């Protein structure tokens, strides 16, 4: 018995289809309430499961955001601490170098001031005034002789004595004034020295004041970071992104430098390790050249760590100063040796190129090889680059550290964004299922609209709601959920 036979209830296919449709509608109408419940519960299960998943993702996002904030604040705190520490170091240096001589300066100033006071006191001494009896003698000298020669002579002598005494007094006065002027003139250099010393003190104090203002500013930032304020987080986040892109750019430049370095030493390296061995698809000579460059970069990292310029390896930074200084010298020596080797290899490269050119020319049948008189310039340039590039690569440690630190923040932000997007998508899909369930309910009712219409008509007449009440309740319950 085939499906067609089962379908053909009556010989007429149209009538058979009609019978089936009527039967189906009756069955669907009868099973309407359980079917509605099944559809609703299915859509609710999916919706709630997805909502739960979305909540979990949002929660993970929130945790990640909190962690990112923590990382950002910790990095910011550390950076600000370093800056403040450095500012204090600078102040310490200023105090040590400039103000350590303050007692000597003070003594010098005191001496100068004492000397000035003494000079000033001396310059205040007025010249001696003519003796008081002169006025008496002058009065006597004005007395008329009235013909008496003896009196005339006495008066003449008195006048002469008076004139002489006056001249002596004037001379003494001039001498005293001259001495005062000399003393005042001699006071000029001590005054200048005092002025200079005070100017120097003023400059140093001002420098400390400026630094203290800088420290105040950094301390304000530090306090903001400690509080974990949104302003501090926004500032650090923006700063971190800028640092990430800038350090990425500098690293790209460094990679370019390393590539040039590689091309300088790869060819002559074949003379040392052979040009025919391979590791996988890579020539051993190329790998060896790359290893040398990597060793140089590593030495650069260690050197920067030992100098405490970068802090990628806390172990090195926390070494005793004596060991650290030794490490600085060891890494620097290794770098110097490697740079010298590279310069030698660069020279060797030039020789090999010459040799190859000469051999090729010979094989082509050329008897004379044209000598380039300016060849030494390229040779010297290659050697110079071979020597300098390893030292230049040392500074890769600084952008590398910044890149690594800022990458944590950037990756955190990216992951946060992804989680937010995933949460949104899950919620969207959950809501789609929810409304799709309602859509299925309406479609179900649409298929059995005829019995529902009949039911409604009967309900109107009898004043009862019947199934319609259940549907609305169901809808209401759905809406509430």
């Amino acid at each position: 018995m085939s499906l067609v036979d089962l379908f053909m209830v009556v010989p007429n296919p149209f009538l058979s289809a009609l019978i089936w449709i009527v039967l189906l509608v009756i069955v669907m109408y009868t099973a309407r309430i359980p079917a509605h419940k099944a559809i609703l519960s299915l859509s609710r299960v999916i919706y709630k499961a997805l909502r739960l998943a979305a909540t979990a993702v949002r929660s993970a996002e929130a945790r990640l955001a909190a962690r990112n904030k923590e990382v950002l604040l910790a990095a910011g705190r550390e950076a600000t601490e370093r800056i403040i520490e450095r500012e204090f170091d600078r102040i310490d240096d200023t105090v040590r170098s400039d103000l350590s001589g303050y007692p000597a300066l003070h003594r010098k100033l005191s001496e100068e001031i004492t000397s000035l006071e003494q000079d000033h006191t001396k310059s205040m001494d007025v010249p001696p005034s003519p003796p008081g009896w002169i006025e008496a003698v002058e009065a006597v000298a004005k007395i008329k002789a009235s013909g008496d020669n003896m009196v005339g002579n006495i008066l003449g002598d008195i006048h002469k004595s008076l004139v002489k005494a006056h001249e002596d007094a004037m001379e003494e006065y001039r001498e005293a004034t001259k001495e005062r002027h000399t003393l005042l003139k001699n006071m000029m250099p001590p005054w200048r020295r005092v002025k200079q010393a005070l100017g120097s003190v003023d400059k140093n104090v001002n420098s400390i004041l400026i630094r203290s203002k800088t420290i105040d500013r950094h301390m304000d930032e530090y306090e903001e970071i400690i509080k974990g304020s949104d302003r501090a987080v926004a500032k650090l986040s923006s700063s971190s992104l800028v640092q990430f892109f800038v350090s990425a750019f500098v690293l790209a430049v460094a990679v370019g430098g390393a590539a040039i370095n590689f091309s300088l030493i790869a060819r002559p390296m074949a003379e040392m390790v052979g040009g025919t061995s391979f590791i996988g698809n890579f020539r051993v000579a190329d790998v060896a050249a790359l290893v040398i460059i990597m060793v140089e970069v590593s030495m650069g990292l260690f050197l920067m760590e030992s100098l405490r310029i970068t802090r990628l390896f806390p172990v090195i930074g926390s070494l005793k100063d004596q060991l650290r200084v030794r490490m600085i010298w060891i890494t620097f020596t290794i770098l110097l040796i490697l740079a010298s080797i590279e310069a030698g290899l660069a020279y060797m490269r030039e020789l090999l190129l010459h040799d190859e050119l000469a051999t090729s020319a010979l094989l082509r049948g050329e008897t004379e090889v044209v000598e380039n008189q300016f060849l030494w310039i390229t040779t010297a340039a290659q050697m110079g680059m071979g020597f300098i590039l390893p030292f230049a690569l040392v500074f890769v440690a600084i952008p590398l550290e910044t890149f690594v630190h800022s990458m944590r923040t950037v990756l955190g932000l990216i992951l946060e964004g992804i989680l937010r997007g995933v949460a949104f998508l899950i919620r969207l899909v959950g809501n789609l299922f929810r409304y799709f369930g309602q859509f299925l309910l309406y479609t179900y009712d649409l298929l059995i609209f005829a019995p529902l219409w009949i039911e409604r008509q009967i309900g109107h007449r009898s004043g009862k709601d019947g199934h319609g009440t259940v549907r609305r309740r169901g809808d209401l319950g759905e809406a509430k959920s």
Partner: protein
Amino acid sequence: MRKLSICMCLQSALLFSACSGSDSGPRNSGVYMLMDTSGTYTNELDKAQQIISYTLSRLAPADTFAVARIDTGSFSEKDIVAKVTFDDRPSTTNQQKRQFRDQIQQFVAGVEPAPYTDITGGLLQAIEYLNERDPGRKTILIFSDLKEDLEAGYVRDIPLELNGYDVVALNVTKLRTDNVDPREYLGRLEEWQNRVESGGGSWRVINDLDRLEAILAN
């Protein structure tokens, strides 16, 4: 500190030893060139020198190159004029190339024409030589008019084992009889192609010496 320095030195040493110790199979080339020295073909040896120089300029460190003459009985090591396996250091390779060129020049200057032409014997010798060296890529260059002329008693009806070989015929000149009946020339080429290809090798003919770059092409 001392421990750290020792660790660093050890790491570097391990890396270098790993680099120098490993090898991933032969990637070098082996070229064996047969030079026909029979009859009037000796006049063409200047061109052979040109080809040898070009081949030398294309070969790299660790490659193998040998030049042998084709004469009455070519299946002999004595017919190898010059042979070399280049050092893996580029500077030494350049010196070897110069010495090789000098050897060829000396040979060409004093070569005597051979009465017979044993190309098959030369090919067998080339196969034996290159199989012994076992380079990554094997090429046999035949600088000849491909007209084999064996002395009585020499047996050369031997199948050639040329699997993995690239055989290149160079400067295949037309003989006077070829001009009368070109089918002879074409038949000669076809016969050699069949022999090489049935032996598992690939066959090419390069008569235009302006495109020598095709000699060692893949």
